[in-house]
């Protein structure tokens, strides 16, 4: 039976959609069958981040309203075998789907037997739900069918505060032990004392850390092209997302070395490119 993960944050703009897309691609890369579900109804975006915006015929509201079957609304990713998207509706609003209907969709996805391009039939291993910002119905919808929650935050006071609120709300919904992804870390700023580091954030939120994603210009390039950075071997964020995916499936992967701060030679080595960060 597949597992449903929700990617949420409270605050907007911290990288939920980018995280969802990259984790999806990375899991598919590892050979898992993945359905990405865009729960941000009215502000659909996961499709453009994945470069699938031109393929949408039906969306989640069409499925809920019975205009099409679930299978018809699922879009097969063009690059990654085993990766599918169930897009949000763009013209409706969050109230067009109820939490019960959302839970039902995730259950249907778990029971859906689908053949991939190469003809291999099987069930989804993971259903990854991209939550909208906020704590209202869109958020309620997104977490309705979730077995597990991943919280995305950035090292900003506002984002960490919202993450704390979300952790409280998830606990109340009995989605226990959420895991944290700290996005957009800038090691140089952490080092110079102008950005909270991972230890600071974990100290404050008291949750399990799932991954740390460094700030990376390649993210924007990837979004411009509709190609998540996970596939880009020169992207440090891409590498970090790969590590997150491997931890999701239970592998033990050490945290990436973010700063080459071990003295002058370490930094020099990094500058000269003879030392991986």
């Amino acid at each position, binding site marked *: 039976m597949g597992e449903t993960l929700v990617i949420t944050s409270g605050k907007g703009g911290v990288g939920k959609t980018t995280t969802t897309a990259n984790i999806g691609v990375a899991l598919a890369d590892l050979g898992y069958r993945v359905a990405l579900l865009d729960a941000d109804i009215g502000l659909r975006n996961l499709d453009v981040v994945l470069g699938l915006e031109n393929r949408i015929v039906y969306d989640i509201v069409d499925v809920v309203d019975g205009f099409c079957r679930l299978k018809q609304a699922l879009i097969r990713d063009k690059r990654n075998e085993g990766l599918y998207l169930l897009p949000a509706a763009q013209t409706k609003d969050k109230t067009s789907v109820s939490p019960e209907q959302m839970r039902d969709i995730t259950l249907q996805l778990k029971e859906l037997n689908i053949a991939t391009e190469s003809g291999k039939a099987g069930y989804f291993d993971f259903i990854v739900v991209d939550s909208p910002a906020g704590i209202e119905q869109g958020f309620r919808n997104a977490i309705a069918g979730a077995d597990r929650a991943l919280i995305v935050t950035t090292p900003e*006071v506002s984002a960490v*505060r919202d993450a*704390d609120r979300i952790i409280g709300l998830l606990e109340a919904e009995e989605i226990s032990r959420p895991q944290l992804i700290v996005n957009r870390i800038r090691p140089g700023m952490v080092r*110079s*004392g102008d950005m*909270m580091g991972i230890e600071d954030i974990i100290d*404050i939120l008291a949750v399990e850390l799932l991954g740390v994603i460094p700030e990376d210009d390649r993210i924007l390039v990837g979004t411009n092209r509709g190609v998540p950075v996970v596939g880009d071997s020169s992207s440090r964020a891409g590498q970090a997302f790969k590590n997150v995916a491997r931890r999701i499936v239970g592998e033990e992967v050490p945290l990436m070395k973010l700063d080459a701060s071990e003295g002058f030679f370490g930094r020099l080595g990094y500058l000269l490119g003879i030392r991986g960060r």
Partner: protein
Amino acid sequence: MGFLSRLFRREGGSKHVAKERLQLVLSHDRMKLPPALLEQMKDELITVISSYIEIDEAGINVELTERDDERQLIASIPVIGMRKRRARQ
């Protein structure tokens, strides 16, 4: 703010301010006790305590903190002297 100040700012970078502010705001968020209500509670505490002992109101510090997963309300109240108490009947 130039090269020198940046050189010497290291330890006092803004991350400490960020962390302290976050810890304070979260202790209020988590207890659902907004700062204004804490002020009100502080005023009431002063009234009650002043009727027993003479305290330095300006030096009072009441704050919510979290230590090792335990929330605490810590009040530091400087005492000036004891009030003369009348014998109760």
